[in-house]
């Protein structure tokens, strides 16, 4: 089963990439309220039970994928 890990900079932490992309978009008349740039990690886990796969992905995410000081993450089941 494939689990996607969406990692974003925490809201209260400055996102330097997001700020720069946001400013550039504004300079090109493509203004948005906010832009945040994160990472997406896809894990193919050898597990067919969704709950177990998510638990495994959570453990992996917290082991190394994200830095709790500056980032948050969300898991999603990748349907095909």
């Amino acid at each position: 089963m494939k689990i996607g890990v969406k990692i974003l900079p925490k809201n209260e932490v400055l996102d330097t990439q997001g700020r720069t992309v946001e400013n550039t978009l504004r300079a090109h008349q493509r203004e948005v309220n906010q832009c945040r740039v994160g990472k997406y990690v896809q894990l193919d886990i050898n597990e067919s039970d969704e709950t177990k796969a998510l638990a495994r992905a959570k453990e992996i995410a917290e082991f190394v994928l994200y830095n709790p000081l500056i980032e948050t993450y969300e898991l999603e089941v990748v349907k095909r």
Partner: protein
Amino acid sequence: MKKTVGILRFLGTNCDRDVWQSVEALGLEAQWLWFEDQFRCEDFTAFIVPGGFSYGDYLRCGALAAKAPVMSSLREAAAKGYPVLGICNGFQILTEAGLLPGALVRNESRKFIDKWVELKIANLAGWATALRSGETLRLPVAHGEGRFYVEDDELKRMHDQGQVWMTYVENINGSVEAIAGVSNRSKNVCGMMPHPERAMFSWMGGEDGRSVLNSLLR
């Protein structure tokens, strides 16, 4: 008329002053081309897109700079056959702008590399006639994302057209076929990861950069 070299400047460009110093050292005039402005090609004899970290290398190296207004003028200059050289981040900008083939991605080591390297000229670039095929150069590199990547069929086309300009003698970053510099099909637009402007005087540790810039600007 004194020859004027246009040096592009984006937010975050940081080798601009170094390139200016080198152009002056060769007895030529330099002029800034600010990213928000457009320019008249006829006022210049050649263009350099310097290295550095335009827009902090955020999103993808060179991606945000490639969209700047000054690039539409540069595109025009390239189409008209003016010599254009992209150095390091300037090379990345030219690939993102579609003026050069391929892409530059993170070094195989995933680390920034600053060191002097040996390079071999593979093919002549249109203007760089002072550099003979097979000649070697010693220049410094300084990049985190300098691994040249290109798909096989495009690589074949590049070979057919003689667009592989220079290669690393020792493949320091995992580039496809150790490619360090390329040109477009008409050979007037070239990009290279090493920094010729950092090898202009013996006190810098080498002077091989002179022949690269000299041939562009002559």
